[in-house]
């Protein structure tokens, strides 16, 4: 009996299995603790905003005279992007996008805008609430994607935690959603977005986004982003203050009281 057991333990495959189980058991509480800490950091008072260097990156990716180098667009969409990126911004032709009409940019372009947002974590769900009024639902209750779903601008998102990183996949994005912060390139029924939100500290969240869409991109397009926590939280409606959309500049005085 003892010899039989000893023979079994000498099997390298069994040893590897036992080592894996041991490491999983030992690291699981650590990963859970990391997740708990990350969740608290996401939920602390204040709101998250994109750092300005990343705002610049986002604008150079879509337009702003950027050459779009490294963005693996298909030839058709490469031409659309390049034509848009080189047009004069100091004209009405330079304005484009959902936001001038107070429509949410949709995914994934929404995360490229300098809009404040807050995380709200509840059992089985992470919600992102944006200053301009839109929100995202990320289901973390272990569900699978449905086979069919009515597409919406921010799509349908499922996420899970890997230590201090929230991994999110989004599908079923509607066609008015924007890929970039601007530029007339929109999500398609094939668009799938994977995001990795890594909570670096109390005040820094890094985001790696990968877009897969064979209609738009020749290969997966991955880009970085970074957000910092600022000590202000407030809500404003886009339409309520939309005095300077397109080429309009409304100088009707507000209520000064």
């Amino acid at each position, binding site marked *: 009996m003892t010899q039989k057991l000893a023979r079994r333990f000498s099997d390298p495959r069994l040893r590897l299995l036992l080592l894996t189980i041991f490491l999983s058991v030992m690291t699981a509480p650590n990963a859970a603790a990391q997740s708990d800490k990350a969740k608290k950091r996401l939920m602390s008072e204040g709101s998250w905003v994109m*750092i300005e260097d990343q705002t610049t990156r986002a604008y150079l990716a879509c337009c702003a005279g950027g050459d779009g180098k490294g963005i693996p667009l298909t030839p058709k969409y490469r031409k659309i992007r*390049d034509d848009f*990126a*080189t047009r004069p911004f100091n004209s009405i032709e330079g*304005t484009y996008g959902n*936001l001038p009409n107070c429509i949410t940019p949709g995914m994934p372009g929404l995360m490229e805008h300098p809009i404040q947002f807050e995380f709200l974590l509840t059992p089985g769900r992470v919600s992102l609430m944006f200053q*301009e009024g839109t929100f995202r639902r990320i289901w973390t209750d272990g569900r699978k994607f449905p086979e069919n779903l009515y597409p919406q601008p921010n799509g349908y998102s499922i996420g899970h935690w890997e230590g201090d990183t929230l991994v999110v996949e989004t599908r079923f994005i509607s066609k008015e959603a924007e890929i970039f912060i601007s530029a007339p390139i929109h999500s398609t029924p094939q668009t799938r977005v994977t995001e990795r939100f890594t909570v670096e500290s109390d005040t820094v969240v890094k985001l790696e986004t990968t877009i897969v869409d064979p209609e738009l991109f020749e290969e997966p397009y991955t880009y970085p982003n970074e957000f910092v926590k600022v000590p202000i939280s407030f809500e404003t409606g886009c339409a309520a*203050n939309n005095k300077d959309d397109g080429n309009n500049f409304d*100088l009707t005085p507000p209520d*000064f009281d």
Partner: protein
Amino acid sequence: MPNFYKTAYPILLANVFVGSVLLSPSADAHHSFGMFDDKQCPYVEGVVKKFEFVYPHIWLWIESEDSDGTQNLWGLVGADPATLAQYGWSQEFVKKGEEITVWFNPLSDGRKGGSMRHVKLSKGETVSAQGDEKFFAKCLPTI
């Protein structure tokens, strides 16, 4: 070399390095800068009637007085609150009744409004109203 680079790249270089692109990283998706004259960079001194730290862009309403005593109301727009929050701006950053100076690119149509570039607060501090301004034509505070 692809045609794109032959035709458009010189324009890109001109835009980026000469600084002729009037693009705010925080605002171009929302409104055109064609309505402002970026070659002009005047300033106005006045009293704050209202400060709106709102999305999509902040607004400052200032009342100035001409030498003949005429009162003028100016409506001036800045960047978005999310960007400016990183530079210390908040709802309380500029107070009603405060005497301030604002440098701006004026509206081309002559109305009393424009795109704010810098604000000198009553306590003497001068701050940008557009973040890092890297995409803007030069417009620096003069006093």
